[in-house]
């Protein structure tokens, strides 16, 4: 089984690269025949990816999210799933290239550095770990997509303002639609992050009541929670402008990235992977 897992793990970056190529072709030329195969190709890749993660979990008898490489792979899978859902709901394929590029990068590094080793601390075999981390990963994926739409919004906004009509202008949906996407992606992200935070608090009390509540990771995630909370409240109550929503969503994701780098490289935290 391990050799099959190895083959699938090598195959995944290749499949995502092919997807990226197809989405790229579709972005530059919507009439390209690639457009017809995108949905099925993405679905097949997701099924293969899910199969690889499931096999790894079965083989090692634990949730395959215990190392940074494993985390990246599950994050890539989660982003692909959330993206496919958004694409299906909004019937819009032109933005896929921006999302799939990051999915490919995540899976490439995951496949390159993954070590097939079943030995992980016992705590990471707990079902609570699975629910806590899964909901966190889903929320990160949703925030990631929200931030990508935020970037696209800012680019299109600036092109229209400055009357420089490039490929972004040609291939993007309207500002109002991008605005909607930022919000629609951020909302499930906020809900899952809330679930993850609550589960984390409960689990910490169960595992080690003496452990400090706040560490670098927790503080940054609270910041993310507040930022995306502001996006949701700002859109519905504060009637924030699209540009504000876009900037806030991008800022939220930057905080997530910074927290990853800092927690995993520079500080001691019980959230540190690997």
């Amino acid at each position, binding site marked *: 089984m391990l050799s099959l897992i190895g083959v699938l793990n090598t195959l995944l970056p290749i499949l995502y690269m092919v997807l990226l190529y197809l989405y790229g072709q579709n972005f530059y030329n919507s009439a390209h025949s690639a457009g017809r195969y995108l949905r099925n190709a993405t679905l097949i890749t997701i099924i293969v990816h899910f199969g690889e993660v499931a096999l790894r979990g079965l083989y090692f008898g634990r949730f395959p999210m215990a190392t940074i490489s494993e985390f990246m792979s599950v994050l890539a899978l989660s982003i692909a799933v959330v993206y496919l859902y958004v694409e299906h709901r909004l019937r819009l394929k032109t933005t896929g290239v921006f999302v799939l590029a990051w999915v490919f990068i995540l899976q490439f590094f995951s496949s390159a550095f993954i070590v097939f080793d079943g030995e992980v601390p016992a705590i990471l075999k707990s079902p609570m770990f699975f629910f806590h981390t899964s909901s966190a990963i889903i929320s990160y994926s949703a925030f990631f997509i929200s931030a990508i739409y935020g970037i696209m919004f800012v680019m299109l906004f600036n092109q229209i303002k400055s009357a420089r*009509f490039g490929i972004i202008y040609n291939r993007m949906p*309207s500002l*109002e639609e991008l605005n909607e996407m930022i919000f629609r992606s951020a909302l499930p992200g906020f809900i899952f992050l809330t679930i993850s935070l609550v589960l984390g608090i409960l689990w910490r009390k169960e595992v080690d009541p003496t452990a400090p509540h706040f560490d670098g990771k927790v503080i940054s995630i609270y910041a993310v929670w507040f930022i995306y909370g502001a996006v949701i409240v700002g859109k519905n109550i504060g009637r924030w402008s699209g540009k504000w929503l876009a900037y806030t969503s991008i800022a939220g994701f930057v905080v997530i990235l910074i927290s990853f780098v800092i927690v995993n490289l520079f500080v001691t935290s019980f959230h540190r992977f690997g």
Partner: protein
Amino acid sequence: MDAETLDLFVVGVNHKTADTSLREKLALSPAHVPDKLETLIGESAVHEVALLSTCNRTEVYTVFEDTAQSSDKLFSLIRRNFSAIESGDRSRFYFHKGRQAVHHLLGVTSGLDSMILGEPQIGGQVKDALRLAQQAQTIGVFLNRLFHLALHTAKTVRSETAITRGAVSVAYAAVELAEKVFKDLSGHSALLIGAGKTGRLAAKHLKGRNIKELYIANRTLKRAEALAAEMDAVAMPFEKIADRLHEVDIVIGSTGADDYVLQAEDVRRSMSRRNKRYLFFIDIAMPRDFDPAINSLNNVFLNNMEALRQVAEQNALKREQELPVAYDIVDEAVDEYQRWRGVQDVKPTIVALRKKLGAIRRGELDKFKHRVDDEEMQRMEELTHRLLNKILHFPMRELNSTKESNQQGPLTAEVLRNIFELKDRYHEE
């Protein structure tokens, strides 16, 4: 008629070859096309005919006698049937034959020969030409197939290339720009200030997108009311524009005013009443109607004529870049038609040859009918049947093998027709 050679021809003029006055002389309204078709089919050399007449072209598609003088004869035919065409006009007509004629119609129908590249209206006009010719019963199997193929090819070109996409007129570019800001124009209102031609056209396109409400403001209220009645819009007093800006999302400036109609301060005031909703200005007036400082306000976009032109030109360029792919599709369809034509050229010959030799056999057998007994007759029937099949096998095999090659097929068929004195393929019994 003996085995004369027929081919497909197109003769006509378009916006590239003829000026408006000549095109006007040839233009026919749909009501007059049936009569003209009746007259044309009455010409001895014309076997099938269809007429395509639009404001940019008039073309006669015909299955016509193919001789060295075909183009002269076709031009004479045009002169006989369309008044005031002089011999000096000949240089402005184009004549295409066979494959080129097929290629021409397929390109025309796909909008590749249109004044605005890729414009889709021509597809409907070709469909009308086909319908009128079918009703007048002036087209047969060759033109019928050709026109259907042309319509199908145009559909493929539209779906597989971006040749019809993107606004290529300034007025339409304004709508395209608005659609890059607003998701669905039907939920938004627009205000047209002034009565400039491009502005009115842009407002008309917006109406075509089912905008919620169109307001029209003019220095003269009466003029605004008249225009509003004409465009199914609502007149707005000119002096109320600044106060009522919060009611609209798209503002088109198209006046001849010397000063700005709206200052940045007017727009700033209205934005506080808009709940951060976008406000989109299109300034197509010269001199400009809107203070350029408006564009620096948050959630406000101001695009002028230059921007619209840029959008239109970029789209036109993109359409041109699609031309090679579009022509590849057309070429493939032309090959398909030519292959089909090759089969059509050969099929009647096969039938006619079998029929003729069969008749000779029957005639010879009949001479012996009363001179031999039934058993003998039966043997002779079988013998001649086998003999005939064996003799026919060679020319049939040759014709069938050349069916796919439209170059050799018709030639072989022609030789056989001459040798066996078969009837012309268009006048089979």
